[in-house]
């Protein structure tokens, strides 16, 4: 445990001090702590004070068998030579609501929009939740949820259910000649 970050340990709320651990190998070495979803803003503020100024990303993992979404906030510090901290939290799948952190980390604004459109997670206090990347591209439930089987939908919609065939074309030039018929 020689890589243990004393500053981070000091600043963390007392509740989570003994939960902080050092895991991973190679480029994925990191401090990790699992927190309750209500405390996420408080914890992230202390992590920011401890010198982890950049948000790398928010990974959302869907566990339908346990009925939860797991959110992994990855934070990195430039001063501490790119050290990584991951804050994990779990929210219920039926009621996926969590506080926004976009005022603490500016990049979180866009990462949270992504989490909203791909997983349907609501962020309380976020003013721009909308379809951003998926606009015009997909209509339906959030596609990265595990119970949305997009491959099956696509196979039935475009390939007639046959996996190794070419897509079924409703309209093609030779068969209908519809491009020239109107002349």
């Amino acid at each position: 445990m020689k890589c243990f970050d004393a500053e981070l340990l000091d600043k963390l709320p007392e509740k989570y001090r003994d939960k902080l651990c050092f895991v991973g190998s190679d480029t994925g070495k990191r401090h990790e702590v699992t927190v309750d979803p209500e405390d996420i803003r408080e914890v992230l503020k202390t992590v920011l004070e401890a010198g982890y100024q950049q948000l790398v990303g928010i990974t959302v993992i869907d566990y339908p068998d346990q009925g939860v979404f797991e959110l992994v906030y990855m934070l990195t510090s430039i001063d501490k030579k790119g050290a990584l901290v991951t804050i994990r939290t779990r929210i219920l799948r039926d009621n996926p609501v969590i506080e926004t952190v976009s005022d603490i980390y500016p990049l979180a604004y866009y990462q949270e929009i992504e989490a909203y459109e791909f997983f349907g997670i609501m962020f309380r206090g976020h003013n721009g939740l909308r379809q951003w990347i998926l606009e015009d591209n997909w209509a339906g439930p959030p596609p990265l949820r595990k119970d949305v089987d997009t491959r099956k939908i696509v196979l039935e919609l475009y390939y007639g259910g046959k996996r190794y065939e070419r897509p079924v074309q409703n309209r093609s030039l030779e068969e209908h000649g519809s491009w020239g018929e109107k002349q």
Partner: protein
Amino acid sequence: MSSASRKKPGFADWVRGSSVWMIHYCTACGAIELPPNMMSPLDLERWGVMPAPSPRQADVLVIMGYVTKKTLKVLMRLYHQMPEPRYVLVGCNCPATGGLYWDSYSTVKAIDEFLPVDLWVPGCMPRAEDWHMGFLRLREKIKKGDIRSPRPIEEPGELEEWIYREVKLREEKMRRERG
């Protein structure tokens, strides 16, 4: 190939084939092999092919790689802004059959449902020389007057609306299937 589109090549066809301007729109990943073609390594300008910044000056719409539904709407709009005669050259595998992204929920699987395609350049991605040959083949075809389909002469916007309707229909079908 419908026989109606075959006609005797004339002087106009020869002229059109000698200077094919493509529209400067990097649709997707296939666009990365266009710089070697446009710049010094292969130099397509010796065949009269060059990028035009606006659709009003372009003759050929080059589709480089996968087309998402959002891009398709842009492509249709561009196609209708191009003056007659206009041609469509499609590179890469993804617009032809879905390619590597065959199970993607956001890409269009067969672009010839929406646009009349004159030439396919298969490959993922096509090598720079393949793109070069593609343009040369298109040039030959234009010179022979041997283009694939009669051009649509409907009101601009009519087809666009049709596409929008079609995409919307599919999306609704998706939504219905998910319940």
